[in-house]
């Protein structure tokens, strides 16, 4: 078994309104920042042990499918890196 950290990033699908991001953008603009757009995302870092990278990726993907993301409104991506156990 190898120790991995799977990073699951969950973001709203393109075209789904994100009022919190819009509010954050407006607040930055009020602070005087110049910006074109702002998108927010949730990032989950999952430490796990797995046979190989593919197995770690599969398990983290299933976590996203079953809980971390809501497929109706979210897309997600998984990145896996070895971790010092």
């Amino acid at each position, binding site marked *: 078994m190898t120790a991995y950290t799977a990073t699951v990033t969950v973001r709203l699908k393109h075209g*789904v309104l*994100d*009022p*919190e991001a819009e*509010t954050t953008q407006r607040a930055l603009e009020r602070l005087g920042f110049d910006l074109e757009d702002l998108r927010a995302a949730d990032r989950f870092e999952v430490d796990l042990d797995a046979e190989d990278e593919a197995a770690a990726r599969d398990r983290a993907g299933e976590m996203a499918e079953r*809980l971390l993301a*809501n497929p*109706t*409104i979210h897309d997600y991506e998984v990145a896996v890196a070895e971790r010092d156990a």
Partner: protein
Amino acid sequence: MTVAIVRFGGSNCDRDALRALESVGVDAEIVWHEDGLPEDVTGVMLPGGFSYGDYLRAGAMAARSPIMNDVRDAAADGVPVLGVCNGAQVGCESGLTDGAFTTNESARFQCEHVHLRVENADTPWTAGYEPGDVISLPIAHGEGRYEIDDDRLTQLETNDRVLFRYCDEDGDPSVDANPNGSKHNVAGVLGERDTTAVLMPHPERAALADVGGTDGRPLLEGFVRAVDAE
């Protein structure tokens, strides 16, 4: 008959629901989610509140608690299941109904009275209204914006799964009458069976004449109609 009102940690409309259901002659009891559904349950109400503190997404945690397996089985058997507010979020998160309820367009918690148009009066929940009736119910939510992709929304509309739409007092589902940015002003939808329904507005807060009006009573009486229809 006994309707189980499922209490999760953070539910806060469970006692209101109990009182409202009793006031329309529906025998109900509050059931702690860890205890599972009683054997002889004749209905399930998922009440409002902030189950699990809305962690991750409103309803996400409660939707994955073991009792929801029982609730899905019951719904598939035709046992009436009604989700209100947080219960509606739990219903969508658990797959009882299609779509998702997410952050209001305003990004604010909104607590106000809204008008709703009855879109489908041919269900146990709405048989006490006429199609096109305009009723008034309170809302109290921060994550009530109904989201779903366009194809699935068309499917819901084609199959008469939309129960209520936000509208003005004349019944026009206008942009201005949409309190939270819900797609096509959708306020409540049916599940696969007509006996499963979720909505963000609170019928249990409009069940007593002295408190909030009585427009919600016919909806709650749906528990009686759904059982009679079986």
